[in-house]
């Protein structure tokens, strides 16, 4: 068993497995009249799995550390809070209020991750411009996923799982395997939920989409700001961000659920392939003897 597999078992499978066990215990999908658990509760389970995964992957670095990887732990929190507000405050269900909540969640994530850039990198006008641009992109990702997942169940879960997998692929190819690993709970949790949803009516994904959007946007900002400057992976990250808008585009097609799902998966695969093409497979000056493998030969 390779070290990446061992690492994945510990950091992804263990916490997500616990969250899924709780979900299944609440859901009891083996019963014919099983009612799916509340969407907000499902979102909270996923958020907890993401937080545990972050601590296992990056280690405990304090409550609010300078090292941005220590803040991955909190990525799901703004999404979960926004989902709870939408769930319990009637006025928050209005589209413009949800948009404001998405902007607020995106801003919190950008602000939490750009602290060292604000201190040492961005000067003058760059801080407001970068903050506004990234916040706008984050709001688009979060609202795109939320709109695309409204009222959906199993099919939407599978789309969320694949979207997270595209982010994982891009982050791994950008030489940040640990952030790639942080997408694992979303893929595993939503993938399993999607498969179970084919058997029994699954939970609605409105609340889950907030958590997924917040976590994926946090990972996007992390990779965009802190990946090695040698890699120049920004085009790939932008294509990964575009995957979050695919469910909203599927909504516009107004096609049958199965057709929509197939279309979404095809577009996601195309975006993943395009992202791959924008990244060099190895360093330009790597010699033929340079056979370094990030996964330490797991394959």
């Amino acid at each position, binding site marked *: 068993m390779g*070290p990446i597999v061992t690492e994945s078992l510990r950091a992804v499978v263990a916490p997500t497995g616990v969250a899924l066990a709780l979900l299944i215990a609440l859901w009891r999908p083996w019963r014919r009249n099983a009612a799916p658990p509340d969407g907000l509760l499902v979102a909270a389970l996923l958020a907890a799995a993401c937080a545990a995964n972050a601590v296992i992957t990056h280690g405990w670095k304090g409550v609010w550390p300078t090292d*941005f990887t220590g803040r991955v732990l909190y990525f799901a929190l703004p999404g979960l809070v926004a989902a709870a507000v939408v769930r319990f405050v009637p006025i928050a269900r209005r589209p413009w209020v949800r948009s404001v909540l998405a902007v607020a969640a995106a801003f919190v994530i950008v602000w939490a991750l750009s602290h060292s850039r604000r201190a040492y990198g961005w000067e003058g006008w760059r801080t407001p411009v970068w903050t506004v641009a990234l916040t706008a992109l984050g709001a688009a990702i979060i609202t795109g996923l939320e709109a695309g997942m409204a009222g959906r169940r199993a099919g939407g879960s599978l789309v969320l799982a694949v979207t997270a997998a595209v982010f994982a692929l891009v982050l791994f190819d950008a*030489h940040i395997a640990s952030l790639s690993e942080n997408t694992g709970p979303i893929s595993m949790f939503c993938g399993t939920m999607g498969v179970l949803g084919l058997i029994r009516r699954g939970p609605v994904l409105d609340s889950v989409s907030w958590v997924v959007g917040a976590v994926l946007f946090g990972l996007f900002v992390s990779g965009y700001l802190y990946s090695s400057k040698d890699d120049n992976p920004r085009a790939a990250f932008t294509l990964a961000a575009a995957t979050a808008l695919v469910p909203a585009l599927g909504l516009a097609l107004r096609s049958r659920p199965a057709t929509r799902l197939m279309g979404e998966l095809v577009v996601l695969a195309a975006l993943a392939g395009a992202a791959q093409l924008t990244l060099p497979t190895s360093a330009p000056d790597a010699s033929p003897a340079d056979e370094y493998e990030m996964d330490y030969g797991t394959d």
Partner: protein
Amino acid sequence: MRMTRMFAVASSLALVGAIAAFSTGASTSTAADTFTVDPVHSSILFKINHMGIAPFYGRFNKAEGSFVLDAEGASSLDMTIDVDSVDTHSDDRDKHLKSPDFFNAAQFPVATFKSTEITPDADNYMVTGDLTIRGTTKPVTFTLVPTGEGDTGRMGYRSGFEAELVIDRLDYGVAFLPDALGADVTLLIAVEGVRK
């Protein structure tokens, strides 16, 4: 006249003596000399176990700093290492080491050491100080071994030392793949400094 000649000879001898004394003083280290780290003739290597099979060595190619070694006075050692200069003879691996998986060079571009206490220990020095890697500062103690000192002519008056210390990378938040790569990292440092 005779007195004038004697005074001239005495003055000349005094001047020669003064020049000789000054020259001697210029070619030996005095108690509080400060040396600037010569990055071209200094080596900062690290050793880590790979997959439990063999130790692997890498290095940092850029460092700067200064040191004072004084058996009777205040000694000090300050060094700053450019993390972006990590070199392991594999460009892909170097990129990975600079990424947030390891050094997170985009957020923490340098590693630093600042001594807090240096005490003589026979021919060596015991150094205690703060080592900062990836934004995390921890106290470390190691033995500094002076390796030579002297006037090298065109390259100036130089002093050198070497040191070795073992740190736990997990203490510094370099926590990726703890099963594949050992937690202990040995730092091997050989420094040559030029007197300011």
